């Protein structure tokens, strides 16, 4: 009776996964449950490797017990015998002892797994599975989704750390439709706040005591794949991760653009043509331009389209979000 009511509670709460796909948690659980007879796994993804996002760390510092409880609850619900916490190497070093203590105390069948590299694409859910299986750390073709074919081919429930925290709260009836927002950028220390889920960017900035102005622009959704907006464009809800990075409008264009392009060139897993080659060519194209060369605008546009529309995974598809929106919304080009 208890177990059924958890899924019901989650369904009723409309809880949405805290990764970046805005997937309904209850739906994912049902998909895993639907696969009959198989061994099942639960994975808590704490890869947290996008610049400007540091909420998982905040949660691990404050509520590690709730995260592990959430994993355990999910394991019971989908009848998984084993759960994993996939931690980036920095967090593994920092939280291993405290997490293991809680696991031991509660006799949870949960294991910690240290992510081999602190890379970006290694946080993608199927790359997480490959990594745990000792395979090359890169995304798999989807479908099939992990809910059907996951860890060693078994149906696997993967959520972000914060989702399991929210599951715990939902189970004990204290979930209040809140989530964690990250703020970073010029003249500020990294900051995290737990606020209502449906706030606009402007409202969140207000909560952080920042007043948008013409002097700034804002990257929303993460420091790598997030979109850039000017101060007038902030009456919008968040897509993707609820993170805001504040930039000064007069920051060096070259420094900012090259930072993004270098990031993706370095983080591409190298699996598919548009991302492996495109991130490299795009970076070189702009580098040449900033060195005083001519900009091949046609190539720039073609590479961006190819990345956005034909990349195998979300990394490539979102690799040009920042650059494109920066030129459009901030530079007005």
């Amino acid at each position: 009776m208890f177990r059924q009511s958890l899924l019901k509670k989650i369904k009723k709460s409309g809880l949405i996964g805290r990764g970046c796909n805005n997937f309904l948690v209850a739906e994912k659980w049902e998909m895993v449950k639907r696969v009959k007879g198989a061994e099942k796994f639960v994975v808590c993804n704490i890869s947290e490797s996008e610049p400007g996002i540091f909420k998982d760390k905040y949660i691990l510092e404050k509520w590690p017990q709730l995260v592990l409880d959430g994993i355990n609850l999910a394991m019971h619900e989908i009848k998984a015998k084993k759960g994993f916490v996939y931690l980036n190497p920095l967090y593994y070093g920092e939280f291993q002892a405290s997490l293991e203590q809680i696991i031991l105390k509660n006799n949870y069948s949960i294991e910690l797994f240290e992510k081999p590299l602190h890379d970006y694409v290694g946080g993608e859910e199927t790359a997480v599975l490959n990594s745990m299986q000792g395979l090359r750390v890169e995304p798999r073709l989807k479908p099939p989704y992990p809910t059907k074919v996951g860890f060693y081919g078994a149906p696997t429930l993967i959520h972000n750390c914060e989702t399991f925290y929210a599951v715990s709260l939902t189970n004990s009836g204290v979930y209040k439709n809140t989530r964690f927002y990250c703020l970073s950028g010029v003249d500020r220390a990294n900051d995290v706040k737990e606020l209502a889920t449906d706030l606009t960017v402007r409202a969140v900035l207000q909560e952080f005591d920042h007043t948008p102005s013409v002097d700034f622009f804002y990257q929303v959704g993460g420091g790598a794949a997030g979109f850039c907006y000017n101060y007038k464009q902030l009456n919008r809800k968040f897509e993707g991760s609820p993170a805001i990075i504040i930039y000064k409008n007069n920051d060096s264009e070259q420094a900012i653009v090259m930072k993004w392009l270098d990031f993706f060139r370095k983080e591409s897993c190298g699996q598919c043509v548009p991302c492996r080659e495109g991130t490299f060519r795009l970076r070189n194209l702009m580098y040449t331009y900033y060195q005083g060369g001519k900009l091949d605008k046609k190539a720039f546009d073609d590479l961006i389209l190819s990345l956005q529309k034909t990349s195998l995974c979300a990394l490539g598809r979102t690799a040009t979000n920042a650059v494109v929106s920066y030129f459009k919304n901030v530079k007005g080009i």
Partner: protein
Amino acid sequence: MKKIKFYINNKEYTALENDSVLDVALREGLNVPHLCKHPDLAIKGNCRLCLVQVENKGVVTACSTVVEKGMQIFLETEEVKSLRKTNLELIFSEHQEKCATCLYQDNCQILKYAAEFGIKISRFEDRKKHYSTWQFGDSIRFDSSKCIDCRNCVEVCDKQACSFYEIAERGVETIIKPKGEVGGITSPHPLLLKEGSLDLLKNDVDKFDCTYCGQCVTHCPVGAISGVSHWEEVEKLLKDRAGKILVVEIAPSIRVSIGEEFNEPYGKIVTGQLAASMKALGFDYAFDVNLGADFTTYEEAQEVVEMVLNNKSRPLFTSCCPAWVKFVEFYYPEFIAHLTSANSPHMCSGPIIKTYFADYLKKDPRDIVVVSIMPCTSKKHEINLETHTIDLGWCLERLDLPNIKNICPDRKQLQGVKIKAVDYVLTTREYAHLLHKHKIDLSKLKAEKLDKPLGVYSGAGAIYGATGGVMESALRSADYFFRVWDETDSLKSVVKGENYKLKKKRFSKLLQSRIEFKEVRGQNGIKEARVKVGGRKLNVAVVNGLGNAKKILDDLKAGKVKYDYVEVMACPGGCIGGGGQPIPTNSKIRAQRANAVYEIDKNLAIRTAHENPSLLEVYNKYFKGDKEIIEKVLHSKFKVKQKTGYTIV
């Protein structure tokens, strides 16, 4: 099976459950460009060329999109065309064009796409100019400056249980390479691919090596991997003989595949045109390895019979596939003693050509050049093995070669002089390229006959090209040999090549022994059968693909299975799917080539090696029952091999 109706370019099509859009498109003859997809392999979706537009879904890759009911697909919207173009241009930036020396120039998929899309292949500068070329043994070359990172080679090599390739590094530094070095993605010091850095890779020869099966070659969509080239040297000799006699011989499986290089349908038998083409190119003699295959069968079947009669340790493994032999020598040395010692077909005909045929021509064996046209890259390795050299001093001492003795009166000079039994191996592709280059269109030639006296062969030799063929040939003769033994209490007449007529006829008046063993035919990876030959029951297995071979060997080691006689071919489908065969090669094409091989057998008057008059003549006239001669000319020794890995060339 459930059928799904959907639409491509507004026309209704039917898909089967789990069909991808690309599956249906290709089946229906619609043009969707693709490179990384190979029917033998998993869908990887990394070349991103097979882009199509799906209504309400946008642009997707056709290979990885499963058809859904009512789906509306558009193959060539402006958006799709433009995206395909960019991705192909990016692929060309990885692939350094070396067309002048590339066998693919006659049939290059990416050049075809380039023309079709109207792209500028040099839009993005080549970025792999300084990448290395690796050579594996004396057979395979991998030019990584042409590699487009599709990973087909990695996957097929894993399937072949060798895993000689690996994917290292990440992003634009990703490199497909032979295994073994300091890198790997978890390395704390990732190896940046700067000029010269690839030369620093360590050759991890203790763990990995290549069997030269060449499956990576036939699965590479851009010609980055190829057989070590012999065609240039052969072409040189054709231009300037320098007093040499050029003998060319064709393997059993060539005649059913080479037509494809000249737009003939899959499985077209072109033996006559092949003979004509060899003459047109200027070879002096054109022989058939099918006769060599009869020698292999004749010897091999005796080994099978002797194993049973003397109750030797089982199983006996065939050994005419050099990639399989190398696999055993490297990874399962405990089974080396179980390999038959009979030479592979062209290693039977080669020594005969360089001895008895040389004598017939009144030529010094050193002036005869033997070129084998083979479906195989591993054969390039086989001809360099010590066991396949001919010791001229010994030949003059022991063999009946009166004319050569006349030419070379000073026998002492030839003491210890060793020559190769076969000098060059051309793959089917290399030979087709030679013809293309010399503007000889095989499909338009008038059929001619192959040369004799080495031209007569049996159906048993013909089926060597397909998986199960060696087994079936050997069983046909073993059946006869067992009966000879039962009637005469010895195999002497067999060793002497006397064509002993059995007193007791079985089956029918026409057939002395059983001919067809259909239970060992077909494209399954592992076939098992209990067959009755010469009144004895044998447990046999026929295996194709080294991955399946590994399975069988592991099962044998674990005592899970027991066999008397096992045929293994390294390549899927046997030689008709060999690493030297035309590209594309896949399961459908392999089946069609195999059917043609059995067709040849069915239409031959003589279908067993032991009835082949040419073969019996050689045994009769030359070997004269001398076991030492037979041993030396037609048998090999195998031994544990040092791993050699690769070299940078």
